[in-house]
């Protein structure tokens, strides 16, 4: 079912993941795979379970059945702090900075489990997000929506993750700001970090990614090369509003 890209090795794989809140299952067996250095989009209508999938992969929601592998290691139902040291970072959609900490402190917290090389990593991250450099000792609460999103991305990069999970990074941003954020995400991916991107903005996400998965009502509906999905009339009719 899944399309093989030039195989550089699998970094993240979810197999038939079932999860939900309380008594209710939201995902009914969703599978996906992310290859090394790949950028993969997860799209689908509201309530399809896109964000829930990221939370389940990251250990924030219990996986009721199915498995999650990170670089071949079973990380199903591991706590987030155990997953994060194994090379997976996650940027939530909202509340993704520490508002009453400074920008620098936010980044230091991103590197919490890192033992050395924090300073070098800070320099790298500031080079990627030059807007943040001059404001490093300002409180994160003073940042605009777009700057917050940049800080959230920067925080997640502090541990040199192999895979970055992004939950709707363009939500509630102006189109111009969203474009800038996507540009940065492409840069991050270009430097070797695999990205799993959940997006409401399906067209933009697919035009940026290598491959895509379409979810609906908690199940895999379609997947394939991003270009193919963009041109697929079903996808267009259902989710792209074309």
């Amino acid at each position: 079912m899944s399309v093989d890209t030039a195989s550089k090795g699998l970094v993240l794989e979810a197999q038939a993941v079932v999860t939900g809140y309380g008594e209710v299952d939201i995902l009914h067996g969703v599978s996906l795979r992310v290859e090394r250095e790949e950028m993969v989009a997860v799209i689908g209508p509201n309530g399809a379970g896109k964000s829930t999938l990221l939370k389940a992969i990251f250990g924030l929601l219990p996986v009721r059945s199915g498995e999650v592998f990170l670089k071949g290691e079973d990380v199903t139902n591991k706590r987030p702090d155990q997953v994060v040291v194994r090379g997976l970072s996650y940027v939530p959609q909202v509340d993704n900075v520490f508002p009453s900490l400074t920008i620098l402190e936010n980044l230091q917290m991103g590197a919490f489990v890192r033992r050395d090389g924090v300073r070098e990593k800070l320099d790298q991250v500031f080079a990627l997000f030059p807007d943040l450099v001059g404001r490093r000792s300002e409180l994160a609460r003073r940042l605009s929506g777009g700057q917050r999103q940049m800080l959230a991305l920067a925080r997640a990069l502090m541990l040199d993750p192999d895979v970055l999970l992004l939950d709707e990074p363009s939500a509630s941003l102006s189109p111009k700001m969203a474009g800038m954020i996507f540009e940065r995400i492409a840069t991050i991916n270009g430097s070797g970090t695999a990205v799993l991107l959940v997006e409401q903005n399906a067209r933009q996400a697919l035009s940026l990614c290598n491959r895509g998965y379409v979810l609906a009502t908690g199940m895999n509906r379609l997947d394939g090369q991003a270009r193919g999905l963009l041109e697929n009339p079903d996808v267009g009719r259902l989710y792209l509003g074309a």
Partner: protein
Amino acid sequence: MATLGATYDRIRGQLQDYQRVAAGVIGAWGLWALIGALFIWAAVDERQLFVIGLIVGSVLALGAIGLTLIYGILRFGNFAHGDTMMLGAYVAFFFLTGLVKEERRDTSIGFGLGDLPGATDRLGDLSFGYGFLLAAAGAAIVLIAFSVGLDRLVYRKLRQRKSSIVVFSTAAIGVAFALRAVLLIIWGPEPRTYFAGITPKNEYPFDILLKTNEIFTFLVAVGSAAVVYVILFRTKLGKSMRAYSDNPELALVSGINTDRVITWTWVIGGVLLAVAGVLLALQANLKPELGFELLLPLFAAAILGGLGKPQGAFVGALVVGVCQEVSVAYFSAGYKPAVAFVILILILLIRPRGLFGSST
């Protein structure tokens, strides 16, 4: 009934309108200006009481900082805070004197730190010797063990059940009652002091009379608060505590160890309470009920500063201390708790998020 409900709704709506107007007019800067004016007036007009108020406030601050830290990290009002402070003071008393109550009489277990050679020889002008300092350190260790142990025994179980803030606070009230009863059983209801006798007051510039004990108290309290500030704002541990207080889920996502943050919160809170309890007992007689009486000024201080904000709790405690002491010039000293209560009500009406609280 319907009319009663409608009247209630109308009055509530009216009150909320007043609150909104008052908040709009006064705001954070207005509140700061008000406090500044109050301090300047008190410092000019009631010098002696003002200075005593600062000293009392600095001790209150240690309790209020712990209260606000626990609120920020664990998200509940620790109603056992005052009684835990008393536990610290009594444990120090026990270490110093070895006294417990048995069959309505004081009996000694046979040894207290005060029995060490020269342990009660006064250090300079202070009313105590090195035995007291050892006893205080011992009390701090006991309170660390008590606080962390209580968390494992009670609060951790509530966290695992994802209990609401009401359940947490109710559990804390239960702990408070139990603690007070234990203090009564072990040491009895009568007032206790660490040292008998009177220490002289010295004269300082501007005709201020102070015991050396009071200066010691102020310095230790402010020093302890400064240490906490350095921990919170300069160390990785402290930053992770602030991060957790800000956004627990993101802290988890960043790999911050939640259990460790919570344990350290209790450790810091416990040490601060032991120091505060011991300093308080240096100034006043030790009674089991004192802890409950302290709860109101402690909460007033923490809320005035903005719940969860340690720097706010410090300022809030100084304000409460000064207001309480200066009020003695105008009302009977019996109204001191009422002063804290009035401050609490005013801040809740005007600016519930306090001096340092933010809207986001």
